[in-house]
């Protein structure tokens, strides 16, 4: 919690006086528990597999495969993460692909979203449609089509093709996130920088980039999450490479080694930590209001 006492009702420069919402006939006034009940029950259900994952990553199973009966608590699997052949390597591959594809999609996505948000140009509509198609197209179709393309171009599948395909779907997400960040932010600041004698490069570095930074961080986070998690598309273009989801999927048929749950728990903990840090930082620095509405 920040020590700065901010008026919580002022969001984006617009007063959202919550009390003014409580008017006769407005549903808010009635305290019916049904909505919070639905919300908390469903959120609780979504947490069930995660609770099981965390608990069973400590189960002292004799077989090296997770099983239901509780055999006692042990930190053994965490201390022997590298015991399962191929798992650690798959995990490392996933992390590498995630970081690299996030970088590629940011580098391509920042100028592209600037162009799409600030200019009207020939092909903009088509580009926009392509970005949304990239997000909406069924993974199974994208995966199959990508594999066809690589095979017929005689590009052998493996690490590089996974990276290319991941960067492609991440690019679409990054552009959508950045455009949302840019929309409503006019160009007055950049123009002011220009009027004050800044070259376009300096204006970009000192004005545009800081404005975009939260969007870049959000886009990068989303990219990392999407990439680490992708199974369907990757299953087509992986060739001999194995990513973490591919390993898990293969092991699921015969029973997961407990170490898989350990890795899952570690990712969960790190993700939670990043999210909390991000929340604290953004709470410190509220987004400036750039609404020209």
């Amino acid at each position, binding site marked *: 919690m920040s020590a700065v006492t901010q008026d*919580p*009702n002022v969001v984006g420069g617009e007063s*959202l006086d*919550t009390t*003014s*919402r409580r*008017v*006769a*006939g407005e549903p808010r006034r*009635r305290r019916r528990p049904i*909505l919070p009940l*639905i*919300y908390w029950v*469903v*959120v609780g259900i*979504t*947490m069930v*597999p995660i609770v*099981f*994952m965390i608990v069973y990553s400590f189960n002292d199973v004799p077989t090296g495969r997770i099983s*239901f009966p509780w055999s006692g608590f042990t930190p053994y699997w965490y201390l022997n993460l590298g015991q399962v052949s191929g798992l650690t390597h798959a995990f490392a591959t996933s992390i590498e692909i995630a970081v690299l594809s996030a970088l590629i999609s940011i580098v*391509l996505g920042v*100028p*592209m979203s600037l*162009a*799409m948000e*600030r*200019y009207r*140009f020939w092909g*903009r509509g088509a*580009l926009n449609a*392509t970005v*949304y198609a990239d997000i*909406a197209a*069924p*993974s*199974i*179709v994208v995966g*199959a*089509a990508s594999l*066809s*393309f690589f095979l*017929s171009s005689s590009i052998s599948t493996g690490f590089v093709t996974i990276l290319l395909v991941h*960067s*492609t779907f991440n690019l679409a997400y990054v552009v*959508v996130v950045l455009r949302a960040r840019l929309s409503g932010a006019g*160009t007055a600041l*950049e*123009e002011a920088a220009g009027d004050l*004698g800044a070259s376009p490069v300096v204006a970009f570095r000192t004005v545009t980039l800081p404005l975009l930074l939260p969007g870049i961080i959000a886009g990068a986070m989303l990219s990392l*999450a999407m990439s680490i998690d992708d199974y*369907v598309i990757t*299953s087509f273009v992986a060739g001999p490479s194995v990513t973490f*989801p591919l390993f*898990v999927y293969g092991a*699921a048929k015969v029973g*997961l080694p407990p170490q898989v749950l350990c890795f899952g728990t570690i*990712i969960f903990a790190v993700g*939670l930590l990043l999210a909390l840090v991000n*929340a604290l930082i953004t709470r410190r620095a509220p987004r400036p209001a750039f609404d020209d509405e």
Partner: protein
Amino acid sequence: MSTATMATDQVAGAGPAPTGQTRRPVGRRGVRAAPYLLSLAGSAWLLILFVIPLVSGLIVSLMSGNPEKGFTFTWDWGVYSSIFVNPAVPYATFFVRSLVYGGAATLITIIVGYPMAYFIAFRVSPRWKNALLFLVLLSFLVSFVIRIDMWAFILADQGPLLTILRDLHLASKDFHILGTSAAVIGGDAYNDLAFMVLPIYVALEKIEPRFLEAAGDLYGSPRTVFSRVVLPLSRSGIFAGVLLVFIDTVGDPVDASLLGGTNTYTIGQAIQDAYLTNQQYNVAAALSTVLMILLGIILFVYARIAGTENIENLV
């Protein structure tokens, strides 16, 4: 046109000599090349790695040959009839089943997700909205395949849930959850719930509170206010959610293979097997094409019925 701007233009060497207009990069004439230069790399990337593969991948269905030796264009539509007319594999059944699963999962996410989005948008102080949205997304921090496999673990015949139910004599010995359609649909809905909650929340959040006040002032009962004001204004959010969830669930092979059984084989699995196991490239491409066309038709009809405006408003 200020002399200062002119000076900076020349000093920075930006663009041509000033022609009596200030350098403004927003939708003005003057800097014509900028958007093309900015979007060049990204556009090229999407063209080469998304558009061309998608188009060529679908065209493969009209070719014969294989990727290693190359394809020859035979314009042979026979592969399409071989899928549906006396096929060795009942693909039509898989298509229907996948559409039913996807439709059911989408419906569940609307029924469950709308109240959740409504709760966050209207019943929670602004201070807590982000936290509650974050809780909806929290399960995404765990790898999707692990989450689904944990469900398989929980719902297994010898797993915790059924063991407890049997001990309480609430379930008979031959009652199964894993391997049934219900398990697959439930898994699909579980996976994509957040994709329904978020767009609906965004749409609800945009509703002007004064509209609700006005409706109340005009003696609208809460029910009427909801059905005549809130629901119509959030339709775009539902549409975006349906688009995301339906497309994702119809083609998804993972839930069906981890939570389903022999009777829940879906088109996603069929495409995967045709491609990766049996190397029937033209069949897989044809199935992909039919899937895209079916999804396109269904969503087009839905868009006409639902009468939604541009999806871009949601982003």
